[in-house]
């Protein structure tokens, strides 16, 4: 599972960690995040994330 970076603020979504504060369990792939998932740091939408190089 790959990490994704928020292009607005640089937050990295790591599927291993998930995003428990936003109700996302560890082990959740970026692709499986809900459509309305938002960057926990800056509020950017899912479309504004890019795969980490």
């Amino acid at each position, binding site marked *: 599972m790959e990490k994704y970076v928020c292009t607005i*603020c640089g937050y990295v979504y790591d599927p291993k960690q998930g995003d428990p504060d936003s109700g996302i369990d560890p082990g959740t792939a970026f692709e499986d995040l809900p459509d309305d998932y938002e960057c926990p*740091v*800056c509020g950017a939408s899912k479309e504004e994330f890019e795969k980490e190089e």
Partner: protein
Amino acid sequence: MEVVEIAKNIYNVGVNDWNIRDFHGYSTNQGTSYNAFLIVDDKIALLDTVKKEFSDRLIENISQVVDPKTIDYVISNHTEMDHSGGLPRVMHKIGENKPLYCSKMGAKHLARHFHQKWNYRAVGTGDELSLGKRTLTFLETRMIHWPDSMFTYLKEDKILFSSDGFGQHYAGNEMFDDQIGEEIMTHAKKYYANILLLYSPLIKNLLQKVTDLGLEIDVICPDHGIIWRKDPGKIINAYAKWANQETEEKAVVIYDTMWKSTEIMAKAITEGIANENVSVRPIHLRRVHRSEIMTDVLDARAVVIGSPTLNNQLFPTVSDILTYMKGLKPKNKIGAAFGSFGWSGESVQLINKELDAMEFDIIDPGLRIQYVPDKDGKDECFEFGKRIGKAVKGEST
């Protein structure tokens, strides 16, 4: 600061902070202002507040125009406390239940600052708020320069309330660009270099977005410093240039020194660069504030760093400027390192590591001299400076 009507029924009710000299580590040698704007229409709106300790002054200023209790809406373009610090006092005065408009992140972040259950109304780009004859349109500007940041545009008057964007830390009796002249650009440049530089890619996108939206802008009202009414295009064009990180044929030689040996090197390097007819400034780290230094770095093509080796490390002030600079993400730079040392001499290698981390084009392995430079050593520094000067001009060395 006097209350000034900047357009019909629109007032700057902010305050000057004349004597602040250290703004969270940024040297504000002419103070700053916290601008807040009152729009009196069928509904009355207050855009942003001031730093907490100026809350009473803000209320007094508002009272010169209207009874504060008659304010209908508060708009918070930015959560940072120099603009939100007055909110508790304002909300208490006007009524805790009055709607407080801010971005979604603004609502979260204001709650984490003030721990109040205010009547947050989260808005996004394109959302409008009618004041009667006038309409406010919100434009989110995430990470320019906080996650919550937004602009508010008043279409009938073509005024952009730009939060920290286009601002300058400057306190004066002038309120408009036409009253002050060129001097203000130095403050605007310093603000960009120290607050916004790292967000340059986002600023480029924002400028494009403003163009695409076809926003007509007659006046830009930032939350710090003077208001751009004579020529708002001037500051927009300057931002476009800074966001592109365009450089001049210019070098800065930033150094510290213990027994003046690294300073002797800096002087000879500076002369070598100047000999190539490249503009150059030597900057002693303990005499010039880091925020002044970044202003010079902004449009410099070459950044040359000198440090003695102290206990196998960089001199602490050199670490300070490198850490600060790295965070601000300057681009399109040539880098080079130098330093005098006594026995181990790690400084040049340590500087190069940092220059490399910032993706500077390191044009030379760097110059180390043990103890005090002699004539040959100074000549070597001069030649090193010439190589840097040639590289600045794009000539092969």
